[in-house]
């Protein structure tokens, strides 16, 4: 029975690295970051493939035997102490799915899978390779060479090879980057199925945020070798810790502003203390979590799912009559993607916001409804002139200090 994987690594040269995370059995942690962020290096370090003299830290895997928990140290090297453990990749019991699968081109699918069970006693193998073939839907392809398989099939063979070793930790290095979109969707489902039957810690490296969000229990955002933030996908995507994280996780609606504390607290709103955000002249009521100083320069993010969008009754901008925390915006562009549409909007009425654009993904039905309401007033024009009122409730605003 395998247990938790604990990773704590630091490196100075050739590439700086400072990463720390745990991964419980059955949990999937995604390391996310742009290329060159060190995510693959972390994975290689866990597998024992990273050969660099300056690597320090500790990698351990917990074991449970008859209820007693012990710990296997895979790597342990600190700058001061003399003892130094560094198990070879062969001794680490990892399953690694390489980015381009690295299948052995001269071996059939089943031999590719069986080769990693080569050191396991026959009694423990228990036809594991054959079972994996069946479980991953590779029946009938056992004797095909990798070059005769499609990308998705190769990916499944690679996954089966990684699992055939009965690994203590499963590592996935951009496993979906080389397959087309339909097979990717199928593979996501297969990975989800797999997770219900395999209880090892799993670490996935990806640059694809959608993938991380869809698959991972927790994400670790890496940039230039340093952990910027870790948490559940919801936490990281809705409350990025700073502007760089917001940028990395691809949040489009992030803006600059200044934060001011208010004396009195408004009643009846969930966060008991509210502050005010000066968004280049537009004042918004926002939550105050007592983490920011009065007058601080901030980056803030708009969580689009909390916004209320209503058709504005009149065409002309008249801020006076608008309810608090409501902004009048004009549609500039609507890009239909079928069920949903990507809409670009420009705020009206504030000269400071002339260059600001909001990007909202609305359901196409909602866009159509807004237009229909509008049409009673003005039939001829199309959506580029559609003006709407957007209510921005305080909980939809997430404020971060500017990155220093």
């Amino acid at each position, binding site marked *: 029975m395998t247990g938790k994987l604990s990773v704590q690594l630091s490196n100075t040269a050739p590439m700086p690295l400072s990463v720390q995370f745990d991964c419980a059995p059955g949990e999937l942690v995604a390391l996310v970051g742009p290329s060159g962020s060190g995510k693959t290096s972390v994975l290689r370090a866990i597998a024992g493939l990273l050969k660099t003299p300056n690597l320090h830290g500790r990698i351990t895997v917990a074991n449970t035997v008859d209820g007693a928990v012990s710990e296997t140290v895979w790597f342990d090297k600190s700058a001061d102490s003399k003892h130094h453990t560094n198990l070879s990749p*062969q001794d680490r019991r990892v399953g690694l799915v390489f980015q381009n699968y690295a299948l*052995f081109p001269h071996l059939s699918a089943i031999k590719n899978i069986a080769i990693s069970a*080569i*050191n396991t006693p026959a009694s423990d193998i228990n036809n594991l390779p054959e079972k994996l073939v069946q479980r991953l839907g590779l029946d009938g392809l056992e004797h095909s060479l990798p070059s005769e398989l499609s990308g998705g099939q190769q990916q499944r063979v690679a996954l089966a090879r990684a699992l055939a*070793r009965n690994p203590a930790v499963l590592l996935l290095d951009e496993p979906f980057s080389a397959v087309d979109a339909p097979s990717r969707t199928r593979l996501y489902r297969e990975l989800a199925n797999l997770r219900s039957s395999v209880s090892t810690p799993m670490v996935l490296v990806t640059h694809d945020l959608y993938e991380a969000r869809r698959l991972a229990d927790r994400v670790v955002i890496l940039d230039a070798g340093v952990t910027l933030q870790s948490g559940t996908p919801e936490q990281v995507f809705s409350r990025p810790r700073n502007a760089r994280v917001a940028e990395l996780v691809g949040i489009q609606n992030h803006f600059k502003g200044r934060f001011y504390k208010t004396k009195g607290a408004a009643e009846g709103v969930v966060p008991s203390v509210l502050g005010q955000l000066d968004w280049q002249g537009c004042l918004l009521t926002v939550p105050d979590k007592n983490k920011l100083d009065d007058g601080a320069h901030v980056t803030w993010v708009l969580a689009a799912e909390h916004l209320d969008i209503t058709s504005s009754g009149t065409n002309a901008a008249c801020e006076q009559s608008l309810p608090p925390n409501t902004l009048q915006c004009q549609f500039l562009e609507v890009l239909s993607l079928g069920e949903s549409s990507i809409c670009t909007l420009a705020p009206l009425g504030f000269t400071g916001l002339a260059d600001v654009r909001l990007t909202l993904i609305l359901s196409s039905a909602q866009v159509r409804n807004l237009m229909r309401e509008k049409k009673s007033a003005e039939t001829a024009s199309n959506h580029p002139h559609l003006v709407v009122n957007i209510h921005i409730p305080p909980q939809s605003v997430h404020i971060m200090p500017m990155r220093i």
Partner: protein
Amino acid sequence: MDWPAARTSLLLAFLTAALLLPIGVALARWLATTSWRGKPLLEALVTLPLLLPPTVIGFYLLTAFGQNSVLGAWLAQHLNLHLVFSFEGLLFASVLVNLPFMVQPIQRAFASIPHNLREAAWVSGLSTWRTFWKIELPLAWPGLLAGVALTAAHTLGEFGVVLMVGGAISGETKTLSIAIYDRVQAFDASGAHVMALALVCFSLLALALVFAADRFGANKKPVKT
């Protein structure tokens, strides 16, 4: 056809290839993966016989292993090994001269194996030795075949070194290429012709084998993604 010469040539070609194969594989595998600083110099040394006139090699071998040299006298006295004007000497010279023909194709074959296949094998629990046998060698075999074929063909055709080190002793060190020379000297064109044609055929066959192996190997190259 000078049958004793043909027998000497074939035996020499076979033994040279057989002796050189393990040496070549070990050296080529190491050269293909090492990042040692002295690698260019060693590669130059291995390739040197390709460029040097055979007479130069023959001359230095005679100097090094002749009865008047310290090394030659020592080998003769203690091991009863005579490396000049003997079949053993011929074989030794042949191994040396054929080093580039064996090492280069094998080195290229090992170098073309993507490193992540080795890593995948390690992560699958295969030791370095097992990775070599199960993964690297099967993938490099067209290179091994090329090395053997080129070495054998080149040994049959070698003239200068063989003449200088071997001395054309009939039945012992006289090879086909020397026999052809003798026939031509004796104005026996038809005698030379038979043997020359045999050598052409053999070399052609060996080269065809090399290219066929290369083509077959290309079908098993790592899959594109």
